[in-house]
Structures are given as structure tokens and as C-alpha cells.
């Protein structure tokens, strides 16, 4: 006779064991159901679950006065840090490299007044035979500009901040997306793709009548 049978009848023991088995099954099914229905925000879902972005939004931002030039080389690393939301690596010696299929900068304007023009100095990352990188810009979700970087030199790219981007407040989110970003190896994850090197960023008040036309999106 087992020790347990000295105190509990076998049928009661069997019933208790069945109850334990059912409890385990119910609890595990409940946890599985909860796991399959995550309670996460849209940024988490987009990056980790759906994989629709390589740029995980973060709550960083820094105050910015119109006219300040922010260096994204090593000399400006400390200042640039809080503008970089996601999709950046570095700075390296030649600037801050984009990482993934899109990047984001965020600035909180201390003296917002339209019209504002953003100017970025960027150079493409190229790997032969690829000789160009397309970059699409949007500000606060509004598609603003598109450019094609050809050749290895640093280029100055300017884009006007749409008035509608400033309606909700003084914070600007500048998204850059790279349809031609280059993966380091054939089977590497998209989060490691490279497209541009950013060396500096600035915002200026644009003179009226000097609005630059929004770039047309080049064909594939």
C-alpha cells in the first residue's frame, strides 16, 4: 500500500489527481490565450509582432532652437543623441549611419513659426553595382519630399515643413525611409540594412516665396 493510500482512499486520490490535471489544462489554456492576445501599443506591435517597421519608436526628444546646426559626426554625439528616435547607428567617423529600412528624428521646437525648412547633409551607402539610394521624407506622417542620392559624396537635402505638421504642437517627427537599403548579407535581417550617413541637420525659417517644390517620387 502506498503511503498516500494510508490516509486517502484511492478513488479520492484519483479524483484529486484528475482535478489537478484539469486545473493545469485550464490554466495553461488561459495563459496561451492571453499570450495570443497581447496587450501592447502600436509601436511594439509594429516592430516586434507584425515586423512592419525596423524603427521602434521611443520617447526621446530634445529642445531645438531654429537655426542650430546639429552635427551627427562624433563631435556632436552628445547633442545629437536625444534627437535620434530609432533607425540610427553610431556616430562613426563619417557620420551617423541609418540602420534598417527607416529612421526617425524628433525635435521639440522652442520657437515654432512657419514656414520652416529642414536641411540635412547626407551621403548614400552604396555597394556596387548599386549606385544610388532613394530616400523618402515625411514630417509628422505627411509625405514631404523624395530624393535620389547618386554617387558617394555628401549632399545637402532641403525640405519644407508643411504648415499642417505644426498644427498639433511644436514637435516635429522627421521620418526617412529607404526602399533601396542594403543588407550586409543575403540572409541578414532587415534591421541591419544600411542606406545613408547623416552628418548634420538644421531647421531654418524659410523666406516667403522661396518655398522649394516637394520632390516627386522617382520611379522604381
Amino acid at each position, binding site marked *: 500500500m502506498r503511503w498516500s493510500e494510508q490516509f486517502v482512499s484511492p478513488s479520492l486520490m*484519483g479524483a484529486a*489527481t*484528475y482535478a*489537478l*490535471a484539469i486545473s*493545469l*489544462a485550464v*490554466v*495553461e489554456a488561459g*495563459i*496561451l490565450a*492571453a*499570450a*495570443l492576445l*497581447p*496587450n*501592447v501599443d502600436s509601436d*511594439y506591435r509594429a*516592430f*516586434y*509582432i507584425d*515586423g512592419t517597421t525596423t524603427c*521602434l519608436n*521611443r*520617447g*526621446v526628444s530634445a529642445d531645438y532652437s531654429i537655426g542650430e546646426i546639429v552635427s551627427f559626426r562624433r563631435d556632436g554625439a552628445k547633442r545629437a543623441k536625444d534627437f535620434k528616435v*530609432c533607425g540610427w547607428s553610431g556616430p562613426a567617423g563619417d557620420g551617423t549611419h541609418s540602420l534598417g529600412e527607416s529612421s526617425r528624428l524628433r525635435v521639440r521646437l522652442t520657437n515654432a513659426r512657419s514656414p520652416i525648412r529642414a536641411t540635412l547633409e547626407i551621403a548614400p551607402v552604396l555597394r556596387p553595382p548599386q549606385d544610388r539610394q532613394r530616400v523618402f521624407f515625411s514630417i509628422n506622417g505627411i509625405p514631404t519630399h523624395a530624393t535620389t542620392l547618386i554617387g558617394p559624396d555628401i549632399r545637402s537635402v532641403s525640405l519644407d515643413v508643411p504648415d499642417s505638421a505644426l498644427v498639433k504642437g511644436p514637435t516635429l517627427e522627421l521620418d526617412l525611409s529607404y526602399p533601396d537599403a542594403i543588407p550586409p548579407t*543575403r*540572409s*541578414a*535581417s*532587415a*534591421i*541591419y540594412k544600411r542606406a545613408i550617413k547623416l552628418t548634420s541637420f538644421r531647421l531654418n525659417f524659410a523666406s516667403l516665396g522661396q518655398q522649394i517644390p516637394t520632390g516627386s517620387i522617382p520611379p522604381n
Partner: protein
Amino acid sequence: MPLAFLVIGYGLRYGAYSFGHTPSFADYLQSLCRWDCSWYVRIATDGYDGYPTANQTNVGRWAFFPLYPLMVRTVGTVFQLEILSAAVLTSTVLACAACLVAWPLLGKDSRAYALLCAYVLSGPLSFHFTSVLTEPLFLLLTSCVLLALKRSNYLAAGAFSALLSATRLVGVFIVLASLLKIYQDYRLQRPGKPFAYWILGKPQILVAILISPAGLFAYMLYLRVTVGDGLAFGHVQRAFGRVAGNPILFLWEGLSAVPAEGWIPSPPQWSALVAVGGLFMCVLLAWRRQYGAALFCTLCIVLPLFTNLASIVRYVGGLAPILLLGAQILSIRTDVFIVVLLLLLASCYLLTQAWIGGHLALV
């Protein structure tokens, strides 16, 4: 025997570390703390990340399962040790315990036992078992499950499986080995009714099966409460750059990654060769009718291959059924046994240097 190999192993690894260094024990422990080690140390020290992560990084700590860092933290608290020392102590004790559990699994064959102890405590990958990684715990718990199954003690197997599933994700697949053993026992008993009916009439077996993934489910519940995503351990793999792909393609890419110069295989080649070797051992396990162990090891090798070859040497090198079978095969002849034993000890020195040097195949 484990104690002897433990001392030899520490001597060899310390010798490998001190080559070209001014040695100190604290620096030795730090030198062996490579790759995932720092993650476990951080988890044992500060716990898991919530979301958003405290330092705004994409790579939350959720990929690393909780049982090992929990044990390290407990040992550190009880013995008032700093976390790295506590982790090394924990790993060492676990590795020795894994050797002790292997004794009955090897049929008390002292030569096979010597080879296994030499491999774990003073072999080429002994730094995996004696530094800060989950390998010693995974090896010990897998051996405990196998021993419990050998004795048809399903409840004990289920309890150890639960712990194994809290150690590493693939640990949950040991339940398949249990199911196969239960099925084999059912066939032997010839009860005259279908397997499903038979098993429903055995509540203790039901509990044993259902409790097997309990560690994984507990961790999922914890992640659901703290992060909001019970599957965060899997979803965070994207931030580590792991993407699903074709394992055969990964193997082929690894095998064909010819070194730029010389004849020594490149890290991807080593990884691919070890993966292929591990799969061959799975076939041998199946051929010896150890179907459950073969299935478990196959899943433990193939599933990581769906992302890439990273860490595959460590994963294959820590699979108890493969190590046990290897020890049995290589100890049949005395001359082979002696040669293999010497090779294990010699390679401990060389591979420890490679580990400290950051060789990618050993990640």
C-alpha cells in the same frame, strides 16, 4: 571522478586564460564571461526589462529564460557573493551534478563516465558548462528527465521537464520524449484499449504531461503581466537580427563559407559541421531505438537552424542524449578511449583561448 576533472579543467582553462595575461582570479571570471553571459548577469542583478526598456534599447532581456538567472540570484543572496562569482559557482555545481546523474544513465560504465565527465568539466566546451550560461542547467535537467523516464517515473520526469521548459525554450520539447516513452510502456503492457483511452484512465500520467510545459507557461504569464506580450521571448528575436529562413540554406551557406586563407574551417563552417554532426547523432539515437531522445535532440538542433547558425555549436554540445551516446561509443575500445580523453583535455586549452578571443563559432 567529476572532482578530478573539475580540478584539471580549471587548471587548463586558467592556463589558457593566463597565457599572455597578468592573471587574477577576478579577471579570469570576467574573461570567461562572453556573449550571453552578460545578459544573464544583468537579469540576475536587475531582473527583466519592462516595456519600454529602461535604456531605450530594442533588445529587451526577454529572450533569456528565467530559471538559471533566478538560481544565480538565489545563490548570490544566500552566500553573499557578487553575481558573477555566484553564477560561476552555480554553473560548476550544476555541471558536477549533471555528471553524477549521468552515471546511472551510462549503465555505470566507468570509461564512458570518464569521457563524459572529461567533456563536461575539462573538455573543449567546458567553458560553456562552467561559466555563465544555461548549458549546465539544461544538461542536468535533461539528464534528470531521461533518468526519470528510464525508471518510468513520469511524475518526476514531468517535474524536471517543467524546470527544463523554464531554462530554455526548446526544453519544452522534452515532453515529446516523455510521450514516446509512455507510449512504449503502453505497448509493452498491451492493455487492450486504444492509447488515448488508456492514458485518460491514468490521471498521474495526465498530470505528468500537463505539468511538463509549466515553466514555459509561468514565464509567458510573467511576460504577459509585465510586458503585455506573453510571447515576447520569441518576438524579441527580431531585435537580435534573427529572422526565419530555410535551415538547409543556412547550412549550405555555412558549409560553403570557405576561409579567405589557410585550411582551418571558418566559424560558419564549424557551426554547420557541428549541426550536421549533431543531426547524424540524432539518427544514431533513433537507430538505437531511443526515439524520444532522438526527436528531442532533432528539434533542439533544427529549430534554431530556422533562424541561422548562431550558437549552434553550444546547442549541440549541450544535448545530454548526444553526449551520453558519444561517450558510450567512444569508450568501447581502450585505445580509442585513451586517445579521445587526451584530445578532450588538449582541446580544452585551445578552445578556451578561442572562447576568450571571441571565436564566433563558440557564441
